[in-house]
């Protein structure tokens, strides 16, 4: 077992020689020296373990991709059919030069995974993006005990506390029905991978009406459908004449379509955005949406703290968003923690 020493700042913690650190920062991203693989690398490398299909985690140009079985078709859709992928089943251990690697559900979107890395009696877990709220479209988060945890911190401020998807979907239904009464199209913006499908599943509790979607949502919707996820039936606006009557419809679209020429096909619209950022009035008003629905695929503050405790990790690294806030708070709770940038830097080898 590695010697966990913590100095007063909590910055240098897992013992200081490079060979002991199972994962290190490198110019290409998070790297495992004994296993010679990267996790969600930011530049092309030979072996990339990908936590999930979002474009800031799954990037093009890798020699070989490893991801969960349910994530593989999403990667193929986003990165091209010709990529080389090895699908891994959740919980099944693979060997990378003696390093034991397994994926575990992260609950973020369909196929999302945490990466467990074990070697020489050290166990590290990289959460990737994750959430703890129930989501009918994603495999539920699994708590994985570990020595060192690298956790996301996108919403690591206590103001972020989520309501259930079911409750948010009820709010969206009220909005949609109110708009129907005045012949107004309900235009709901959301990320096309993950959030859109989650909304289509959650709304299925309340209605059987067909929903319309921007062309960007459809291929991902079909992949979810092929994996047996139950969602409201959805039609693409691309397949409909431009003068189609959307006056009582709910239409899903990615945020990039907001104020684009695509929107011209709708007459009266009320716009909404489904995102964790909508928790704050100022953020909603700044983006210019009429309504904000607080629905996130990331862990909220209580979810983050609870998860860190459940893993039993003695050293935590935080990444994304409010990583410094989370690290400082954990230190005050006597958990050694630091932003991921404090983890060992491996100098560029090439």
């Amino acid at each position, binding site marked *: 077992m590695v010697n966990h020493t913590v100095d007063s700042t909590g910055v240098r913690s897992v013992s200081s020689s490079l060979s002991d650190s199972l994962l290190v920062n490198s110019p290409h991203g998070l790297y495992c020296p004994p296993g010679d693989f990267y996790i969600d690398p930011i530049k092309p490398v030979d072996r990339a373990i990908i936590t999930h299909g979002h474009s800031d985690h799954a990037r093009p140009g890798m020699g070989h991709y490893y991801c969960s079985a349910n994530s593989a078709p999403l990667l193929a859709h986003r990165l091209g059919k010709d990529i080389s992928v090895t699908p891994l089943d959740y919980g099944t251990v693979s060997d990378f030069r003696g390093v034991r690697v397994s994926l575990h559900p992260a609950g973020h979107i369909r196929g999302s995974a945490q990466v467990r890395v074990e070697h020489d009696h050290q166990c590290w877990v990289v959460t990737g993006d994750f959430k703890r709220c129930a989501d009918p479209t994603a495999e539920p988060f699994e708590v994985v005990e570990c020595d060192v945890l690298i956790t996301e911190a996108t919403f690591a*401020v206590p103001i972020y506390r989520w309501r259930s998807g079911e409750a948010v979907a009820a709010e969206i239904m009220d909005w949609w029905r109110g708009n129907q009464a005045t012949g107004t199209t309900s235009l709901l913006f959301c990320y096309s991978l993950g959030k859109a499908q989650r909304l289509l599943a959650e709304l299925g509790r309340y209605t059987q009406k067909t929903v319309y979607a921007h062309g960007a949502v459809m291929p991902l919707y079909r992949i979810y459908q092929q994996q047996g996820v139950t969602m409201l039936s959805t039609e693409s606006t691309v397949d409909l004449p431009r003068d189609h009557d959307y006056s009582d419809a709910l239409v899903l679209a990615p945020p990039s379509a907001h104020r684009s020429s695509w929107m011209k096909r709708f007459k009266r619209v009320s716009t909404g955005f489904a995102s964790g950022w909508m928790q*704050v*009035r100022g953020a909603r*008003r*700044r983006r210019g949406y009429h309504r904000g629905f607080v629905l996130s695929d990331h862990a909220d503050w209580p979810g983050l703290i609870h998860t860190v405790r459940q893993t039993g990790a003695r050293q935590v690294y935080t990444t994304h968003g409010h990583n410094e806030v989370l690290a400082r708070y954990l230190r005050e709770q006597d958990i050694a923690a630091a932003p991921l940038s404090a983890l060992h830097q491996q100098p560029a080898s090439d």
Partner: protein
Amino acid sequence: MQHFVQLFRSIDATTSSNAKIDALVEYFRAAAPADAAWAVYFLSGKRLKRFITSRDLQLWARQLTGLPEWLFAECYSSVGDTAETVALLVGNEQTGDSSLSLQQWLENRILPLRQLEKAQQAQAVKGWWQQLSITECFVLNKMLTGAFRVGVAKTMVYKALAQVTGLPQAVIAHRFIGDWQPSADFYRLAVDPEQRRSDSAKPYPFYLAYPLELDPDHPDSVTTGNQLENRLGPTDHWLAEWKWDGIRGQMLHHQSGVYLWSRGEDVITHQFPELAEAATQLPQGVVLDGEILCWREGRPEPFSALQKRLGRKRPSARFLRQYPAVFMAYDLLEYGHLNQRNQLLAQRKQLLATVLDGLSQPSVFRQSPPVAFDSWPMLEQLRQSARHYGVEGLMLKRLDSPYLSGRKKGDWWKYKVDPYTLDAVLLYAQPGSGRRASLYTDYTFGVWQDDELVPVAKAYSGLSDKAINRVDNWIRKNTVERFGPVRSVRPELVFELAFENIAPSPRHKSRLALRFPRIKRWREDKTSREADSLTMLEHLLAEKANGVSPLPAASGRIASPDQD
């Protein structure tokens, strides 16, 4: 309170003024008069006399949640509003709404807090929070700390009430102006179409002018004689006056007494006893609109002198001698107890002259003199030189204009002097509030003093959303140090700032203060070495200290409007 919270939600859920007004109409139609009175009170921007501060709310929220102070500060910087931050931390998912009405919340719960000790206040407020949803907590916190700014302009409230009652909007505005106590009786009278008697102690809604666009890059810019001609037509329809650099006010003389109102709808009679005393010489049933100024030796004193007067509730005789005030009358709104606002400006000015001529001279009541001009190019020349006379520019008013209410385009324009400008370097940034929370939008700028950059101004606005995002991005990548929410950045970005005035200020490191600084443009073409120096500003200050020139003689006559 649930109907009021629902109203807030509806208003908050739309950016359309019409939709907001519809929501207000729906609320006022259904609300009990006492609830409606409180709703108007808050939505029109009035606030309870403050007895609970944002600091109190913050402390109590931290006690309830156990959050350390630094973490609350992090929350605040993501939100930009204390009432909202606290609501997000303490509010419940489900509404625990009691059946109490808005009036009951105010009169049985909130107002009685005033009689309690801090500890009891804390206990009460914490208890309510534990019962309420996030939105309800937010509305409650806003009522407790005042400043209920939720995207509703006062005029929208009046418009909605006009729709509900069938009364003209101006009548509604007049009835709700100034100080009033929310009650069912007050509201019933205020919205009663049969009610005729107006409260004689209240001012009329002020008529405000739109500015003529002075930015030469703007398509509607008006900075040449030709452009003035195109926009305003022949000169003989127009009256020009100096735009005095004081505060707008209305002086009322009625049987019940003399009242001096500021445009911010505060009674400031006591701050200006010499004006109040002189006003008793005015005929009864008169309302004057004008500018309150400090005045000495035939010319206006800088605004800073007037600020001193505004700060003194009961000025001493010596203080009055030191900063003598005058009322520079622009307009006559009421005469012989009769509303004159529908008369033409030229007629009102004649009547005003008659009223003021009846006072024993010299008087603190003066008529704002017309500025003589034969042509638009000449007027443009006058504007250019206005700063030498200690005025802010010119006002242009159609001679046949009625006295409208609120800011309206067309009959009255303000034609201000060009602001001063300087090129300064971005030194510090901190997140904005409200719509700009979590973006770095509040900047501190510096200019050169030898090899050092000295802070001279803070500015908050003036950039497009796109530019704000770019600067925000740059700030995050070029931070040198962090002090709580404030970041110091590499001194590299240069901005052109506009400001209205400059005054000495021993409190600042630069020893001077700029009035109303704002960002004019981002000078991406300049390096920080090309920014201005403190010496340049010191020269400007010295130039001003040499005094303003006497005003040019007035023509003394107002032409009759051309009515062909």
